[in-house]
């Protein structure tokens, strides 16, 4: 079993061909998890993995298996699995167990997927480095002095260190794609509404999407096809009739170089080299402009905290999680939230509450939401002349743990990823090589954005980028 080069397709063939069992496959991953424990990627490794794998083997023996049967998954700590602990890497959910399955989990369970454990993350998905977890930092397996990215850093590391075959993360401003880029794996943020958010602990409800982190574009496509679809429990999920496979040829790749000021020169060189190679494969590289994309980060950090401040009001020490008792109910709220939330969470709640307050709501929130439409219009206009838009996934390779203590410098890591969440369009990060730092090779990612519901377009170009590597 060549676990380091294993894909879902290969695992499927081997499981169905009885080369090994789901139990043996799960055990192989358990031993990798043990070997890489020091990376702090898992908050919990489940104690019933063998039982899950036995059930998967029974499905395979019956001949009723589907593509994800027996496949080992890690799941970000903000996606609910009924009966299991979940906490969004926050103390405020200490002791809480999920009371229902997220829709994506129910779909994977139905197919017989095996859940290895829940992965470490930035607290409530707020962060770009997985340094904001209440349970310690996660280390990048390519250079353990560096961050894996965030907020799905634990998920990305499980796949990059071969401690899971697939992971599910969540992406609100790049939290699947950026850690995928930093860790040298594939990350997909689907079209907003393509995958149900039911059972995902909400961060920014107009921005969040669950997405796969995988070793290959093919695996991302398989998982996406299994988890997508309309859900009666999520009124923002799109009708199935809209999921029409794109049959058009992908010919033109748009590049807005005016946005690349300040990008690390080695990252830029890698990006341009990849474009040059894609051109030799028959793609036309087209210069485009996205005038309002310059304001994307500012818009995002107005809209997101506003939605955060609302979404996190439910964590009051009353219905679930940590309860700190004071003299009054008001004191209970204050003490529970002060003790339960970490600094970045408190920062964003304060910011968001201010943004939504009387006298500031129109100046900040309404204006940002209006401007958001301008960015969407920019992308729609660009897609009249190109099929996909390419950028580096991040402006730098993975930075050192502790390097970006200033929150604003951390926010700058999201500069290329937030537009896909603001517009709702799908985006894919594919590994495109390495840059060298301190004698270590650090992965970099190449990001593609496509029009709404054209994930197939992303995969088409993604396969060609993979072939280059």
């Amino acid at each position: 079993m060549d676990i380091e080069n294993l894909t879902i397709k290969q695992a499927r063939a081997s499981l169905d061909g009885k080369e090994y069992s789901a139990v043996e496959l799960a055990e192989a991953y358990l031993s990798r998890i043990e070997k890489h424990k020091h990376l702090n990627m898992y908050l919990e490794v489940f104690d019933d993995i063998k039982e899950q794998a036995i059930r998967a083997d029974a499905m395979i023996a019956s001949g009723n298996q589907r593509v994800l049967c027996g496949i080992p998954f890690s799941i970000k700590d903000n996606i609910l699995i009924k009966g299991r602990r979940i906490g969004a890497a926050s103390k405020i959910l200490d002791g809480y167990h999920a009371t229902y399955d997220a829709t994506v989990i129910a779909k994977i369970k139905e197919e017989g997927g095996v859940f290895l454990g829940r992965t470490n993350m930035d607290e409530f998905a707020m962060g770009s480095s997985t340094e904001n977890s209440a349970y310690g930092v996660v280390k990048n397996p390519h250079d353990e002095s560096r961050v894996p990215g965030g907020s799905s850093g634990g998920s990305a590391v499980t796949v990059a260190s071969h401690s899971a075959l697939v992971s599910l993360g969540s992406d609100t401003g790049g939290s699947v794609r950026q850690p995928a880029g930093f860790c040298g794996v594939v990350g997909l943020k689907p079209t907003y509404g393509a995958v149900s958010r039911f059972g995902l602990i909400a961060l920014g409800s107009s921005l969040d999407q669950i997405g796969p982190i995988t070793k290959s574009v093919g695996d991302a496509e398989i998982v996406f096809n299994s988890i997508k679809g309309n859900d009666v429990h999520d009124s923002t999920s799109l009708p199935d009739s809209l999921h029409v496979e794109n049959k058009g040829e992908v010919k033109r790749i748009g590049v807005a170089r005016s946005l690349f000021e300040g990008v690390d020169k080695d990252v830029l060189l890698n990006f341009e080299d990849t474009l040059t190679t894609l051109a030799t494969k028959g793609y036309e590289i087209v210069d485009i402009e996205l005038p309002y994309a310059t304001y994307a980060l500012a818009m995002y950090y107005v809209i997101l905290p506003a939605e955060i401040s609302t979404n996190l009001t439910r964590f009051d020490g009353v219905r679930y999680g940590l309860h700190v008792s004071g003299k009054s109910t008001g004191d209970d709220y204050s003490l529970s939230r002060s003790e339960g939330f970490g600094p970045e969470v408190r920062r964003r709640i304060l910011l968001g509450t201010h943004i939504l307050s009387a006298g500031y709501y129109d100046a900040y929130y309404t204006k940002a939401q209006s401007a958001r439409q301008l960015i969407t219009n920019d992308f729609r206009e660009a897609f009249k002349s190109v099929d996909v838009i390419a950028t580096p996934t991040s402006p730098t390779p993975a930075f050192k743990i502790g390097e970006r203590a200033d929150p604003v410098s951390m926010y700058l890591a999201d500069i290329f990823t937030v537009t896909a969440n603001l517009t709702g369009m799908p985006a894919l990060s594919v590994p495109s090589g390495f840059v060298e730092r301190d004698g270590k090779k650090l992965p970099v990612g190449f990001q593609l954005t496509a029009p709404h519901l054209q994930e197939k377009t992303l995969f088409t170009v993604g396969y060609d980028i993979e072939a280059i590597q």
Partner: protein
Amino acid sequence: MREDAEPHETGIYTKELLNEAPSVKDGYIEVKKIIDQNT
């Protein structure tokens, strides 16, 4: 959006939900008294 119809049967999730609450009494989530009649 879906119709505001077909609610699920009352009480079918109560036990599970209350199991997760920090403080429970007589089948309710317990909170401190908010309104004092004497003030």
